[in-house]
């Protein structure tokens, strides 16, 4: 047998050339540092984010000087006091947190059957259809989707003309809080399904059959086997939906039309409309702290779910 670099295909030669370059600039003894090198771009990105956050935290401790419209030099907790005292802000905070809780709950309830059907169906055509239904919204974008809702839920929209035709009168959903929640649930559903599907896949169908043969009906199997075994996925999906909702900006803006602003809207207004940078920063810091605390508590109570990669896998 004659072996020669010449016999390799062009692609393989290219790969081996790259290998030679790698060996020259990253010799074998640098091996232990390889992982850190790969991490570097991500660390840089996070570092920029942290720098921005630091600036924001700093700004949150300076009050706005009404005479110059600049932040004062002294450190003070005035901004935080204002946020916690003004009813305007507490209303927005309560509204946002409540929305995040409701949207998370409804989304999980709707996403679980969807993910289950998608994973368990025996028909390839059904699975394809469900997958298309899952990914289609991603191609459309949040703004276009929200306007779609305006068409369906508007005063003269699909829903109200149907209700009128049935003689049930009309409901006002556009520019209302429930309208925002409906829009958010629809927006979050694909994320939740995508995070739940692997968790359902990880439960062998045999386990459900076993539960059935051992005497558990369908609901008992759901409660005692399926939900506990998919808990990692439920936790992960819940955390993602919760954090995405609590920080959402577009949906309350478009579907709420100013009636149901979330914290993000107030922060935006503070930075770009009313120039109250300090106040907005305080609000943003509170939002980050609040969301982090909730996620931290969930992780502490029920584990990190499928968000945490671990060597020990579910069998």
């Amino acid at each position, binding site marked *: 047998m004659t072996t020669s670099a010449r016999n390799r295909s062009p692609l393989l030669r290219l790969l081996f050339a790259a290998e030679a370059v790698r060996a020259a600039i990253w010799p074998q003894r640098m091996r232990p540092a390889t992982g850190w090198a790969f991490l570097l771009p991500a660390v840089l990105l996070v570092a920029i984010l942290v720098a921005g956050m630091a600036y924001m935290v700093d700004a949150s401790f300076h009050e706005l000087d009404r005479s110059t419209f600049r932040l004062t030099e002294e450190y003070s907790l005035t901004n935080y006091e204002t946020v916690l005292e003004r009813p305007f802000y507490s209303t927005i905070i309560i509204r946002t947190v409540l929305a995040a809780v409701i949207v998370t709950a409804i989304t999980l309830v709707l996403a679980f059957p969807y993910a289950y059907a998608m994973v368990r169906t025996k028909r390839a055509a059904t699975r394809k259809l469900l997958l298309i239904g899952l990914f289609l919204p991603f191609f459309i974008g949040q703004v276009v989707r929200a306007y779609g809702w305006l068409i369906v839920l508007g005063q003269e929209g699909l829903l109200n003309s149907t209700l009128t035709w049935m003689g049930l009168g009309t409901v006002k959903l556009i520019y209302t809080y429930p309208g925002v929640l409906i829009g958010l649930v629809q927006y979050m559903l694909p994320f939740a399904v995508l995070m739940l599907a692997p968790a359902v896949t990880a439960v062998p169908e*045999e*386990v459900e059959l076993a539960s059935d*043969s051992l005497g*558990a009906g369908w609901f008992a199997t759901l409660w005692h086997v399926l939900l506990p075994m998919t808990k990692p996925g439920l936790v992960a999906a819940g955390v993602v939906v919760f954090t995405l909702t609590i920080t959402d900006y577009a949906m309350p803006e478009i579907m709420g039309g100013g009636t149901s602003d979330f914290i993000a809207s107030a922060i935006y207004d503070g930075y770009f409309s009313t120039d109250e940078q300090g106040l907005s920063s305080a609000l943003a810091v509170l939002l980050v702290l609040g969301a982090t605390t909730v996620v931290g508590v969930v992780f502490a109570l029920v584990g990190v779910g499928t968000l945490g990669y671990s060597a020990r896998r579910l*069998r």
Partner: protein
Amino acid sequence: MVRLDGVTKRFGDVAAAEDVSFELGQGEFLTILGPSGSGKTTVLRMIAGFMEPTAGTILLGGRPVGALPPHRRSIGMVFQRLALFPHMTAAGNIAYPLRMRGFPRDEIPARVERYLGLVQLAGLGDRRIHELSGGQQQRVAIARALSFEPDLLLLDEPLASLDRKLREDMQLEFRRIQQELGVATINVTHDQREALVMSDRVIVMDGGRIQQAAAPETAYRLPANRFVAGFIGVTNFLPCAVRRSADGEAEVAIGDTVCAGRCAAPLPAGAPAEAALRAEQVLLGEAGQPIAHADMVVPATVTEVIFEGDRVVYAVHAAGLGGALLRIFDHDPLHHKTRRIGEDVAIGWKRRDLMVFPRDT
């Protein structure tokens, strides 16, 4: 305990199981043996209630079960991949059917302990499933399937994934537990050895149909057809022509050699047939010399030698048998003699060991 009458399952035009009928008594251990796609798992799933038969009836304890869902049947099942609940302890798994089936709460702990003891896991009840070894997980699975005292135990190849040593240990262990409790059991496997070792009775299936239902030894010694003869044991099939047949005996010509053998049904003279000879029933002797106990002796040449320790496997070429290649298991407890490739030898067999089957069955 269980009776199947003409049970058939069709998927479209394909019959996964066709006209399957058998009966199983209290305490009996039945193995359904067959290759994959033979319909054995389909039959098991219909009995468990995961599938409904297209035709025929299944009776459990004398009552037809019809479309009764699995959780309303009194059947314990051990699954191929065990299907234990990883979020529960071993004891939690065994208690699960008791809770679901409404056993009195205060009786459950004692019962769980008893079944842990039965499968020799006493004291390990608090372990999580992933903290147990493969063999221990098998034991939990069988305890879980039995703790609620089902009328029937189904085993869906639970031993298939184990390594050989552990599998053989567990075969005996399953058999011991089954006999201790006297529960009627249906085991499904493609492992002929497992079927012979564990069962009171064996049903051999192929193409969705029962090929033979018999005691293990009968199925081995008197296979009903060519499929059974080929599936259980290692068998040489030699094309031959029938000269005459009567009273379960047939005289056939294998190449230039005329010899007699057994046949299940009379065969018409001149019909193409196959003579079957098990690898361990072919005797090996010195070229040109008679072989003790053999009714027939023909010359042959060794073409392949595989030393397996407890036996030597030979392939020999026999010109006198139409140029057939035969596989021989030689245990040779007397001489410790291993033949060389190319060596001329004699092969022989007893008349009762040659079975004749019609070709194309």
